[in-house]
């Protein structure tokens, strides 16, 4: 797989150079061009979303332009959005690193009659025409805590103990929202589980490993760790593994199968929670196409290939579906 990725990179770069030389600006008359700016490039999660968007692009005849910053930096995102707007795309959307930084860009896009949407991590602006949400934030936060509680019970025989959260960027809005709902679930349903600390490791597995190691030392009687983003769960699992606490400290959280596979296979992690990012990308592509064609959404929509998808008129949100639990039985999924 990696070898292919490697050669593909070269092929893509070579191809791009060729396209540059030949002049690639020619666009097909009726085909819509849709820009998508992920939080950052170079990570498998957004590559999977892109895969889904490309699928929708092929199916609904749209050209998808995927371009993002090299680190989760909203200033770089805004620069890219600005360039895409000036390129004259028909729709532009982001997975926002900061919900408030896109206001002026949304206005600029709308002034030029360009559709603006957000997906995965939303934009707070009145002009934002569509939000595509992977999962109900509340359902996700609750699910993660339920999985954690079940794991604690399996380890110790009771749903009580001390747990810590390791999150990614402290400024990431969606991660903070999930943390909020996780805390709420703990307070409502599991009063005997005590949250002792929330720490941030950025989008970096080494930092997550270090921070979890320190958490394990700082709280010697820690019973569980929740990783809130893709890199935190494997980082936490590695720290638990090397400190010899496998089976004593429950590790779960929100991450993708490719990243967590080694730890599920060796038993450090039993279950994690996610959604299907390929489907999320596909749903985003479908939603944007509806907007471009001037169609409106119904409370429940029939999306080809996905089935029934709910739409909330008030927040203009398409909702992919319930969270998905990943364990040994479905860890072979490739994203």
């Amino acid at each position, binding site marked *: 797989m990696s070898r292919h990725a490697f050669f593909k990179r070269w092929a893509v770069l070579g191809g791009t150079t060729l396209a540059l030389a030949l002049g690639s600006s020619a666009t097909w008359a009726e085909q819509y061009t849709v820009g998508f700016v992920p939080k950052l490039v170079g990570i498998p999660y957004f590559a999977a979303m892109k895969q889904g968007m490309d699928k929708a692009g092929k199916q609904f005849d749209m050209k998808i332009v995927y371009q993002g910053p090299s680190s989760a930096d909203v200033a770089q995102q805004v620069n890219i959005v600005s360039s895409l707007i000036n390129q004259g795309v028909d729709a532009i959307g982001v997975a926002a690193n900061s919900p408030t930084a896109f206001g002026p860009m949304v206005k600029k896009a709308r002034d030029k009659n360009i559709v603006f949407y957000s997906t995965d991590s939303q934009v707070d602006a009145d002009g934002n025409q569509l939000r595509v949400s992977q999962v109900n934030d509340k359902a996700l936060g609750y699910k993660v805590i339920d999985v954690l509680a079940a794991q604690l019970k399996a380890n110790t025989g009771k749903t009580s103990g001390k747990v810590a959260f390791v999150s990614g960027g402290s400024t990431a809005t969606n991660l903070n929202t999930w943390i909020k709902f996780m805390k709420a679930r703990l307070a409502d349903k599991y009063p005997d589980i005590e949250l002792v600390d929330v720490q941030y490791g950025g989008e970096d597995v080494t930092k997550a490993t270090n921070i979890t190691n*320190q958490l394990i030392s*700082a709280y010697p009687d820690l019973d569980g760790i929740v990783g809130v983003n893709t890199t935190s769960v494997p980082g936490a699992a590695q720290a638990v593994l090397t400190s010899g606490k496998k089976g004593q400290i429950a590790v779960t959280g929100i991450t993708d199968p490719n990243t967590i596979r080694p730890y599920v296979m060796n038993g450090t992690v039993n279950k994690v929670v996610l959604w299907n990012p390929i489907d999320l990308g596909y749903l985003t592509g479908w939603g944007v196409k509806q907007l471009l064609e001037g169609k409106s959404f119904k409370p429940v929509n029939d999306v080809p290939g996905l089935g029934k998808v709910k739409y909330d008129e008030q927040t203009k949100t398409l909702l992919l579906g319930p969270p998905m639990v990943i364990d040994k039985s479905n860890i072979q999924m490739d994203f």
Partner: protein
Amino acid sequence: MATPASSGLNWPSWINVSVRELLLVVGVIVITAGISIGSSGNFWAASNLTNLMISTAITLVPAIGMTVIIVTGGIDVSVGSMLGLVAVAGGTAFEYGLGLAAATPVFLIAGAILGLINGALITYGRVPPVIATLGTLSVYRAAAFLFLGNHWITMIPPSVTETMVLTQPLGVPVAVWIALVLLALGMVFLARLPRGRHIFAIGNNENAARLNGIPVERIKLAAYTLTGVLVGVAALMSLGHSPMVQTTTGTGFELTVIAAVVLGGTELTGGRGSLLGTLLGAILVGLVQNGVVLLHIQPFWSGVVLGVIILVSVGSATVRRND
């Protein structure tokens, strides 16, 4: 002058302890005591000590090469991207099914090549070290991205972690032993061998060194290449510590390494420096980063504390010099 620093103590000359280093030892003890008390003794948990030692070793190994480079009057700000690109190369070797022993040369050779490029630009291209390595900092990162694309390498064989971290002769992980052996070799080399003295001579006065027949260019080239190799070693250790390669692996690592060397009393103007100081500097940096969670505060504080410690430490050295 031509040797690291003088001392009145009658120890073997390669264990050359200066006042600066004694101060650093005091600093390490004070901070350790502070964290021990603040964490109600949790600092001494085996898992924490292992983690601290591994993180320090990963900083220390490239810092040995960085010390040599800085003593010659140069600097290498590209080690973070170098670590990332080497990890990509080595990680790819693992993905092709190579075992730890077979993949190790890949790490070392990749590091050597990248270091050699830096060195060649600086010596034969006569590009100032800051500029050359600032350039390769972004070029190497772009290259890592080019090779890796949107893919992360997660299938690092468990034997890497088992060998580097979990195997602990005398309670100390193998990675740390490797770092200590490399450090000892470096100390003997700098203090005992003619080549070591040449390095200080270059830093003190490059032209004079050249006139005295010291092969300045070749030594500098070797220093950058050596640092590349050491970054390769650090990359392998770091995959034992957290077995995953991202496109961003190693980002900002150069700052940690340079901070350790500078804290250790090696002067950026060249000609003065000590590896013992670098060891203490690496421990100090490791402690500061380790302490925050143990003291139940947010990691944001580590930056503030590290900055203040560097200023105080470097400043106190100046105040003493003036006395």
